[in-house]
């Protein structure tokens, strides 16, 4: 059996479950005669989404660009701060509590404030997405850098590797697996936080579109928006996972756990 058949076999159970779920949903709505504004059947959602496709595409594009910008900015900030906190122990002990504190601010509360401070443009939304993405990346980066193998650290010091060499040669490559875990978490948060940002204050994007649709009782379009958000999330996650696979080729391959 080659690996391709194995992959298809792994894919089969979730696809079957998903299909069964949609069928059940369709049947329940049809048989009970539930009205479409309350709970539309999957076929209604597909049909309405198809007829609204130009608008959906436009809003999806807006959400995607906000997500990508926010993710990139937040990840970059997290990476940088993680490295700085690692290299400067005094700064680390001072700022770490503040870092954790920043994550306890509810996004839903800070969002309107950001709009008040920075207006309805791109900036407040971008800041919100960055704020959400920044933390998991920073914590993963810091943890990964601090977790360098002590034996390797001692070896590198014994042969005379300076601080910068140890950072680039040992600590940074060693931090990559953990860093990618952080990036994956940030990637999956980024889309939903972009949607929340658009919900709070925007004139475009899927968040705005879903808000509008729900106020107009176009429930099927709300569901279409949800489906698109989920797809965007999965795509971004898959992209990061793919980058991880390419970067960490040196890692021992795990036995196929089936």
């Amino acid at each position, binding site marked *: 059996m080659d690996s391709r058949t194995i992959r298809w076999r792994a894919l089969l159970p979730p696809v079957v479950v998903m299909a069964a779920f949609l069928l059940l949903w369709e049947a329940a709505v049809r048989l009970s005669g539930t009205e479409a504004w309350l709970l539309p059947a999957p076929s209604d959602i597909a049909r309405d989404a198809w007829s609204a496709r130009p608008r959906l595409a436009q809003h999806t594009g807006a959400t995607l660009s906000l997500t990508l910008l926010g993710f990139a900015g937040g990840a970059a900030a997290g990476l940088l701060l993680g490295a700085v906190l690692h290299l400067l122990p005094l700064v680390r002990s001072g700022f770490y509590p503040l870092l954790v504190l920043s994550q306890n601010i509810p996004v839903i509360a800070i969002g309107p404030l950001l709009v008040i401070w920075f207006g309805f443009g791109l900036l407040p939304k971008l800041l919100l997405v960055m704020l959400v993405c920044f933390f998991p990346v920073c914590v993963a980066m810091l943890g990964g850098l601090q977790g360098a193998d002590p*034996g*390797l650290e*001692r*070896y*590198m*010091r*014994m*042969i*005379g*590797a300076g601080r910068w*060499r140890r950072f680039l*040669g*040992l600590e940074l*490559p*060693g931090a*990559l697996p953990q860093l990618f875990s952080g990036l994956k978490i940030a990637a999956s948060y980024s889309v939903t936080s972009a949607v929340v940002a658009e919900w709070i204050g925007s004139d475009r994007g899927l968040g705005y579109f879903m808000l509008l649709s729900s106020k107009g009782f176009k429930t099927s379009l709300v569901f279409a928006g949800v489906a698109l958000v989920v797809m965007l999330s999965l795509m971004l996650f898959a992209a990061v996972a793919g980058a991880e696979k390419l970067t*960490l080729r*040196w*890692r*021992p391959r795990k036995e196929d756990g089936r």
Partner: protein
Amino acid sequence: MNVLEIRNLRKSFGSGGRRVEVLGGVCLTVGEGEFVSLVGPSGSGKTTLLSLIGGLERPDSGEIMLAGKPASEGAGRAAYMPQQAALLPWRTVRGNIELALRIAGRDRAEAKRLADEGLRRLGLEAYARSYPHVLSGGMQQRVSFLRALLSPQPLMLLDEPFGALDALTRQRMQRWLLSLWEEERRSVLFVTHSIEEALLLSDRVLVLSASPAVVVRELQVPFARPRSAMLGSDPRFGELKESLYESLGSLEEGDMPL
């Protein structure tokens, strides 16, 4: 001229009532092309001694002379082979060797040439592009030894290099090291727990006392080189072994609280 000369080295850790003297005036020398072993009860400060020689820590008092001159500040004074192979998992065998040579000050082309040459000479060229995790423990230690051998420093510090290997692999590695060293004749300070290993490999064996450590016995190993791996069956080998065990035994008993 001695490659390494240590005079009256003292080192304590902790402070106040918790102050523990680890080294209590250690004196030793390693001559040009000499193989010197250091044996001692566990906790006799062998690792501390290596840290001081390597430049990771500073002695409280005493002198470390390398090639007749006081040792410079900082680490990187000696080639080093630790108990765990300390190979970076994301670098190939050749990449690991190259990195060590680069840290020791070789340029890129030179490091590559030396690494290739060394791997060929030791018959390891088939592993040059492998990652460390696919190698057995013994093979990893061969690479680790080669890496130390290629380093330009005249002194090699070997810190229980075979301590983590199983008995059979250990014996094979001792023979391998013996024949290799007899060709190369580098100056070696070899830390070990095994008296047989020390007798088989060394020109001189030094016995350290428990902490605070001092050199309590020095034994010139009388066997001619090149040595055979069958040396263990020589009756004189047995006598020397017994006598060293006695020295060590009396030290261990001295540790016992009354």
